[in-house]
């Protein structure tokens, strides 16, 4: 990383903290090592062992996100919180947009839903770019916000809601000229359509927000009653996925169901880790209604620096060691 980018990176970190602290969020720094994690089927984790001299050794994990700890703090009544965490994801290819260790901002807003978090995220981006990268092209245009349903209509020519209701997503994708090969589950088909057609079609000269994801993609986002959607958005900057947000599910039963389904999927592909059996109980008591968002800090620096690859915006990128 050149010195100019290092300076930009330092300023981004400082201004992130400044904006959120001013807005009344408490900065926390929870551990990177954890004895248990929230099961999320598509995340592979780094394992290590703690070997104390006087007790049995214990398996520990490097966190793939600070969520496991931040939700405990929310349940304990810490209020609006944020963390800029080092996160670790195993089993992902190293590339232009991926490094196995990365910096992530995660913040939780009490009493807020995903749309309120979106306002905060867009204000945060505006503030940051004004402070640290006032000339960056991608922040000069108004963000484009569209629902996943609108994106399907616009870029694939059919209604996702209708296709889901009539259980004909696969034929609809084939008709739209995609080649979904052996993909079968709704989750796989939707993700494939997003990656193959929708994401590459989104404008990359501005921020783009996709709202309201189908329920069939399992997450801890709250469902919108009477619709096929969940209260979730993703934000793209310069065509790159930058942030993800939910209105958090707070129904302990739904959380427990999510844990069970994800644990089962992880076991099926032999990627299990320890899960705190009592974790869903957090949501039985006074767990506050809230919205949580996570933003890739390295990718943000990448967008603001107008560089091509994460290698150019992080210290000692992993790719240099392989």
């Amino acid at each position, binding site marked *: 990383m050149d010195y100019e980018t290092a300076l930009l990176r330092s300023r981004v970190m400082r201004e992130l903290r400044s904006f959120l602290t001013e807005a009344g969020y408490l900065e926390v720094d929870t551990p990177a090592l954890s004895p248990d994690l929230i099961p*999320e089927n*598509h*995340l592979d984790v780094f394992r290590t062992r703690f070997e104390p001299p006087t007790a049995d050794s214990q398996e520990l994990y490097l966190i793939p996100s600070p969520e496991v700890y931040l939700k405990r703090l929310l349940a304990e009544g810490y209020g609006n919180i944020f963390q800029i965490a080092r996160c670790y*994801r195993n*089993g*992902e*290819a190293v*590339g*232009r*947009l*991926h490094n196995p260790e990365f910096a992530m901002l995660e913040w939780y807003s009490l009493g807020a839903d995903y749309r309120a978090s979106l306002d905060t995220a867009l204000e945060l981006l505006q503030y940051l770019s004004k402070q640290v990268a006032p000339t960056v092209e991608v922040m000069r245009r108004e963000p484009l916000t569209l629902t996943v349903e609108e994106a399907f209509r616009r870029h694939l020519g059919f209604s996702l809601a209708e296709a889901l209701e009539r259980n004909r997503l696969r034929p609809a994708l084939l008709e739209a000229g995609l*080649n979904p*090969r052996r*993909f079968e589950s709704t*989750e*796989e088909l*939707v*993700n*494939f359509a*997003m*990656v*193959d057609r929708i*994401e*590459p079609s989104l404008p990359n000269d501005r921020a783009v927000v996709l709202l309201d994801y189908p329920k069939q*993609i399992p*997450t801890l986002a709250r469902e919108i009653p009477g619709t096929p959607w969940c209260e979730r958005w993703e934000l793209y900057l310069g065509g790159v*996925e930058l942030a*993800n947000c939910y209105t958090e599910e707070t129904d302990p039963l739904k959380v427990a169901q999510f844990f069970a389904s994800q644990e089962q999927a992880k076991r099926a592909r032999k990627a299990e880790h320890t899960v705190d059996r009592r974790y869903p109980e957090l949501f039985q008591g006074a767990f506050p209604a809230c919205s949580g968002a996570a933003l890739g800090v390295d990718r943000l620096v990448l967008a603001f620096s107008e560089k091509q690859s994460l290698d150019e915006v992080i210290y000692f990128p992993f790719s240099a060691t392989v």
Partner: protein
Amino acid sequence: MVRAGAISKGMVLLMKDEPYVVTEREFVNPGKGSAFVRLKLKSLRSGQVLRETLKSNESAEEADVYDKDGQFLYADEAGYHFMDAENYEQYVIEREGLEEKGSYMKEGDTYRIMMWENRPIDIVLPLKMTFTVVEAEEAIKGDTVTGANKVVTIETGRQVKVPLFIKPGDKVLVNTETGEYVERVNS
């Protein structure tokens, strides 16, 4: 067979029974869904561009290609004429889709030729090659802006953007993928 997650740029895959070279590869790990590899490929026969999205645990078939040395003799309307370095047989590779590479080739020099089913299908250039500058404008006096460039012509006739201090007769290292000047070579 190769796992999609292990596909890299420059690899030659068999798609629709034809060899395609991978020109772009992007990993997409949405975190909330399975990981994908987004590929842009170019047919080594027609130059046609193809986009494919594979799940990273899917497999793709590698095309059975190999390289051999060929001496570049000359170019004409029919294409680029080479001589096999081992058996001295001459053959022609059509220009279509290879003009960019052709602009770096020097007559008499030997290059790696990619073969598929006993036919030459591509020319593999070194990533960086040295060229002699044959024509260069004088640097404009008083122009001291750092990073200022001028355009020179190298021995193959190709034009390259270089720093102002480069003179005719200088040798320069050029990146053959981007066409960019790398450095002056001391001879």
